Structures are given as structure tokens and as C-alpha cells.
């Protein structure tokens, strides 16, 4: 079924029309290669989150197809699909009544793992996101800082050994220093574990720093797709240039300071 060497995710001419005729997404095609991070960038309302939610079927596409590991997601059980794919959302989305360990363990538990395996896996994940289980496993989310909660969110998404992680503005609620640290740690994790990721962001600098591929969306359509350097060198439209202007200006300012 899965084609080794083929893309992890192949989005083919997908569209989404809501009842009432609002077209949120029009004819979007994207590919995510194994181990890569694709950033969906654009302003709020451009349709990027809708594309993300169609991948694990939190929303169903109105047209086109989405192929994950060689299988059309339309033919898969949504719950099983979601358990195979990691999900990280803005502002952590942790369950406040469960401890850190229980939050991380929830998917392995639903997948029916042995208790000892679940324990080993949660310890491993917490170590990986630098929250030593001896200190953190028994705490509740309310007792953690924003950055620590987001780390738990990553640990939870990775606990079920997914090939693909979907992230909706995962860093936007964090302060700049924490955000920078976590962005770098996430890339390190990805390099270590080899999973692929799709990240929705409105922050162009974040997309440039983290992504292997960037797709810029406007009014439900992709207006340019490419690597960060391709975008910087050849912005397709004035709109893309405009989005890139802020990070460019910041880079120039910093370079002048360092000179």
C-alpha cells in the first residue's frame, strides 16, 4: 500500500465549500516528503487551518483527494486515522484534569498498549522534551508554564509513534525566547525521530526558520510554494513580497548591529 520513497502526504486538488456556499479552500495541491516540515503560511481566514483539518478529517473535503501513506483518507476510519497522526494545537489543548503522564499516555492507552510499554514510552517522551518524568509526570497542566505545557503537547502528539504531525499555530501563545528555544528543539526532535510535519502559522519568520517547504495561501488558494530561499529570492507576487518584508527588515537591522 505505502509507496516507499513516495511522499508521506499527497494533497490533490482539494477544495472545501461550506453549506451556504462559502469557499474556504480552492484547488489546493501539496506534497510532504518524508522527514520534511511543510509550513502553511498566510493571514487568518486564508484557509490554512481548514487544509490542516482536512488531513486528519476533522473536516471533510468537498472535492479532490488526500492520500496519506498511499491511502485515500476518505476511505479510512477518522478515529483510527487521527490516532496515527500526531495533533498539536495552539495553546497546548491539554486535559486539565489529567496529570502530565496521563495526558501523554492517552493515545497509547487507547491503542491498547501494555501498561509497562505505556510507562516506558511516556518516560521516554518526557525525557525527549526535557521534562524529566521524576519531576513532571505527576503534575497537572495548571502547575506548568506555557512553554512546559507546549512541550507536553509535543510529547503527547509523538507518544503514539506517528509518521506525521499536524500543528496549528503551536508556538504563537509563547513568549519570544521560549518560542525560539522550542522551535529549535522541535527541529532537533524531527531530525532525531524522522517524522514529517505540517505546520500552520501566520508568522513568516517562523516559517522561514523552521520549514523545508512553505506554501503561502491567500483567499483559499496557494499563491506560491517553495523552499525558504526560493521564496526569498523569487517572491511570486507583491503579496508574498509584503509578507517577507517584515522578517527581511528585522534581519537587516540585526546584521547592521552585528557589523
Amino acid at each position: 500500500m505505502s509507496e516507499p520513497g513516495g511522499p508521506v502526504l499527497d494533497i490533490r486538488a482539494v477544495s472545501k465549500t461550506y453549506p451556504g456556499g462559502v469557499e474556504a479552500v480552492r484547488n489546493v495541491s501539496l506534497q510532504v516528503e518524508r522527514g520534511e516540515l511543510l509550513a502553511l503560511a498566510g493571514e487568518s481566514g486564508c484557509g490554512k487551518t481548514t487544509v490542516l483539518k482536512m488531513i486528519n478529517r476533522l473536516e471533510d473535503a468537498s472535492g479532490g483527494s488526500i492520500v496519506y501513506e498511499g491511502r485515500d483518507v476518505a476511505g479510512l476510519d477518522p478515529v483510527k486515522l487521527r490516532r496515527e497522526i500526531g495533533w498539536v494545537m495552539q495553546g497546548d489543548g491539554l486535559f486539565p484534569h489529567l496529570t502530565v503522564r496521563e495526558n501523554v499516555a492517552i493515545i497509547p492507552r487507547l491503542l491498547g498498549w501494555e501498561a509497562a510499554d505505556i510507562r516506558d514510552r511516556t518516560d521516554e517522551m518526557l525525557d525527549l522534551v526535557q521534562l524529566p518524568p521524576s519531576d513532571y509526570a505527576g503534575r497537572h497542566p495548571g502547575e506548568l508554564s506555557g512553554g512546559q505545557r507546549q512541550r507536553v503537547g509535543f510529547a503527547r502528539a509523538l507518544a503514539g509513534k506517528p509518521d506525521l504531525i499536524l500543528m496549528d499555530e503551536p508556538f504563537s501563545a509563547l513568549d519570544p525566547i521560549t518560542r525560539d528555544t522550542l522551535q529549535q528543539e522541535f527541529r532537533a526532535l524531527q531530525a532525531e525521530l524522522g517524522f514529517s510535519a505540517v505546520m500552520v502559522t501566520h508568522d513568516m519568520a517562523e516559517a522561514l526558520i523552521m520549514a523545508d517547504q512553505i506554501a503561502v495561501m491567500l483567499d483559499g488558494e496557494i499563491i506560491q510554494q517553495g523552499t525558504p530561499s526560493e521564496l526569498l529570492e523569487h517572491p511570486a507576487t507583491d503579496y508574498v513580497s509584503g509578507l517577507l518584508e517584515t522578517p527581511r527588515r528585522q534581519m537587516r537591522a540585526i546584521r547592521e548591529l552585528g557589523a
Partner: protein
Amino acid sequence: MNANFAERLAELPHFLSAHVVLSVTAILTGIALSVPLGIHAAQRPKLAAVTLNVASVIQTIPGLALLALMVPLLGGTIGYLPAFVALMLYSVLPILRNTIVGLQGIEPQIREAARGIGLTDRDRLWQIELPLALPVIVAGLRTATVWVVGSATLATPVGATSLGNYIFAGLQTRNWLSVLFGCVFAAGLAIVLDQAIRLLEIAARDRRRGMAMGVGVFLAALVAVSVAPRFVSFDGSDPAQGPLGEAAAARSIAGERVVVGAKAYTEQYILGALMERRLAAAGARVDRRDNLGSTIAFDALRTGEIDAYVDFTGTIWATVMNRPEPIDRYVMFTEMSAWLWQEHGIVTLGRLGYENAYGFAMRRDAAEALEVDSLDDLAPLAGDLVIGGDPEVFARAEWTATRDAYGLGPMETRTMDNTFLYSAVRDGQVDVITAYTTDGRIAAFDLAVLDDPLAVLPPYDAVILLSPEAAQRPGLAEALAPLIGAIDAQTMREANRRVDLGDQTPAQAAAWLDARISSRTGPEEP
């Protein structure tokens, strides 16, 4: 006072256990109904609005009215069932509302995270939403518990035993210790159950299994102890047996269960206790259903929920047969007996010998000052007078007939419990009252009963009525027969006075009455 305290204490196991069983079953059923309904409605805003409105309407019905309504709605059944249904309905609103509010109050982000990581709807409900809504649901449960335990005291008039028996009986017999018993134990039970639920919630939140087990064992023990008497043969008869020789006389009802009913005032308690003594002497196991509402008592007899009670010819005539016109005493008795037998198979065992009529009474000095001797004399003064009556009198045909015959329409009417009527007229808070002519307080407070020259007021001869089923048991009629014609008005008034103004309990007054009847050579002919 000590005898009173001992007697109240002896009633406690019976009343408290019945109260526990009634409230706990009502609350548990309420939970079983409201929580699933709340879960279902939480995701359906329209359904949520409809169910909450229905529950709110039920809640606005006063507790006593809801309980009373259940009797006709359940086809005249009295006792546990109507009380259970009414209290269960009462518990629905707080639990339902808090289940809906608790579930709707969960942040959408948490719900989306649960979906996004692959929880099924069922997992999401049980592992995320219900635990998060639990504190709110439990708060509703605690409210419901306090309401139900409190309202269960109102179950007494529909024939369900509860701690309310203390309160209703105490109010009627001016036995404030009894009222206090009811209040203290009802409040205590509410507090204990409320705290038990609170501890269960803490145990659930902090996963303290030991604590949860402890509270669970306590609650289970409380219910088990309360239910136990229902499965053990429970002899509810008066422990103090009268010095009677009749025990040998009765044979056929020995060991059988007989249920004696009584309405909610002193004279009825005494007569209920008297019948209990006679039946117990004949070897029957007697259950008492005190404090029944007037028409509820009749319905209960008709359906066989109770076997016997004392009613009055005029009451049956006016409120059951719906015959407004007054009629000669003996004709009324005969017609009523025939009608009861033909319509319902109810047997009128006979007249006790006294009449307890509605009369209109004033302070003797006030009546003299106003030169009032009879109801005729009241008409010119009617606009300036206030008349007090018990809760049912102003709704009865006798009042309308009297009012219209004597032109009493302009009088201001004021309703209060029978207990307070006599002191209200004595203290000048009202000018005239509707009085029972056998009440001991008429003489004690020096009240004058006004004449009825037009003979508008029907006769009220006290009669023992037997249910259709009880009528088939000759031993039962035999045990009660010596009471027929044995109680004159003066004797009844004295027995009432002993309770209302002395410090005797109805059981003590019944013992006195019993001894007095037995000491006579035989029943007097009316």
C-alpha cells in the same frame, strides 16, 4: 415531657428509615434520569431549552401540591409511590441543569483537542467531558439532595411515612417536641448526605479509593439499615397494651395486617390509636397511616390502601357524594351508607355516638358585647368581621351554603391551620372561627358556638368506614364493633382536651378512652 420524649424516640427508627429510603431512592432515580438526559441535551441546544423549561415548571409547583397531585395521577394510590414519583421529579431540575451547564461550559479547545488526537465520542464523554463537568454536576446533585430530603417531610399527607410525621402530628397536637424532632433529624439527614456526596467528589477528584470506599460503605450501611425493617416482620403496634380482657375474644384476624388511616388532626390521631389498640388486642399487626388529607383518606379506603378510618356523615355527603343540601341526620346516615356500599363496596360499620360538626364560634364576651347569639345576628356586622377557617372549610359546600343563607359574604376570610384557629379568636386576631364542636378548646377558651336557626349546617356524625376488602373480614369488624355508640361528645371533647391542652400524647388519650369504654357495662345506645 419524659414520656413524650420516649415516645418520640421510639418512633425514630420507623420514621427515619422510611425517610432515608424515600429520599435516597428518589435521588438515585433522579440521577439515573437526569444525567443521561443532560448529556443528550447538552449537544442539542433546542432540546436543552425544552427539557430545562419543563423541569423548571415542575420546580415551580409547590412541593406539597406536587405530592398531592400524584395521588389522583396514580389512580388514588397513596403512600410511598406518589411521594417517590413527586420527589424524583423534584430532584430532576438541579441535576439536569447542572449536567447541561457543566458540559456546555467545557472550553471548545479541549473538546477539539480530544477529537484531534483521536478520541471517539464515547471516550471523549467519559474520559474528558464528564470528569471536567463533574464538580458542576455534583453541585447540582447536592442541591437536589437537600431539596429532596427537606421536601420528603411533606410526604406525610399523601400517606408516605417520613420524618414529616413528627412535624404534621406535632403541629396538630401542639406537641412542639415532636415538631422539633422532625426538623432536627430532617436537617441532620440533609447535612449528612450532602457531606457524604462532597467527600465522594473529593475522593473521585483525587482518586482516593480508600475514602470513596469508606463513604460508599457508610451510605450502603445507612440504606441497608433503613431497608431492613421492611423485610423483617415489623410489629408497629403500640407497645403499651391496654388492660383489656378482649384479647381472647378475637380470633380470625390474629396475625393479619390491618392498616388504620387517620386525617391530620388530634381527634383523628386519638381514634386511630384507639382502633389500633382494639385491633392489636385482637391479635392483628396494625400499621398506621396518619395525617392523610381529607379526600386522600377516602380514596385510600376506596382502593384498599387503608382498611379502616373514621369520617363524618356530613363530609362524605358534601365532598364525596357532592350533595349540597342539608338533610335529616338519620336519613343522611342511611342514604350515605347505602350509597357507599352500592358505589364502592365500602361498609359503614356504625356511628361512634358523637357528632363533630362545623360550628361558628366567637369569644363569649365579644358575642355578648355585639349581642350575637346566632348566625342570623352576624349579617349586619359582616363587613367589619374577619373569619378564620381551617384550610379546607372555605372550599366546602357547607360554607357557601351558610354564607349565602345568612348573608356572610362581606366577611373577610383568613385560612390557617386548625391548631392556631382557637388561639387566634381567643387573642382577637380574628372575630369568628369555624370550629369543630368537639374541640376541647371551645370550653377552655370560653368560646360561644353560634346557633344555626335555618339548619343550614349538615349533621356530622362520626362513623367508622371499612374498605371493600376489610368488609370481607368479619374479625376486623368484630374487633371494632364495641366502639360503635360508645363515645359521646363530652367524652371525645375530654380526650381531645387531654392532648391539645394537657400534655398527653394521642396514644395516652386513646388508652384513657379505651379504659373508659371498657369500664362501662356495654355500649350505650345512641
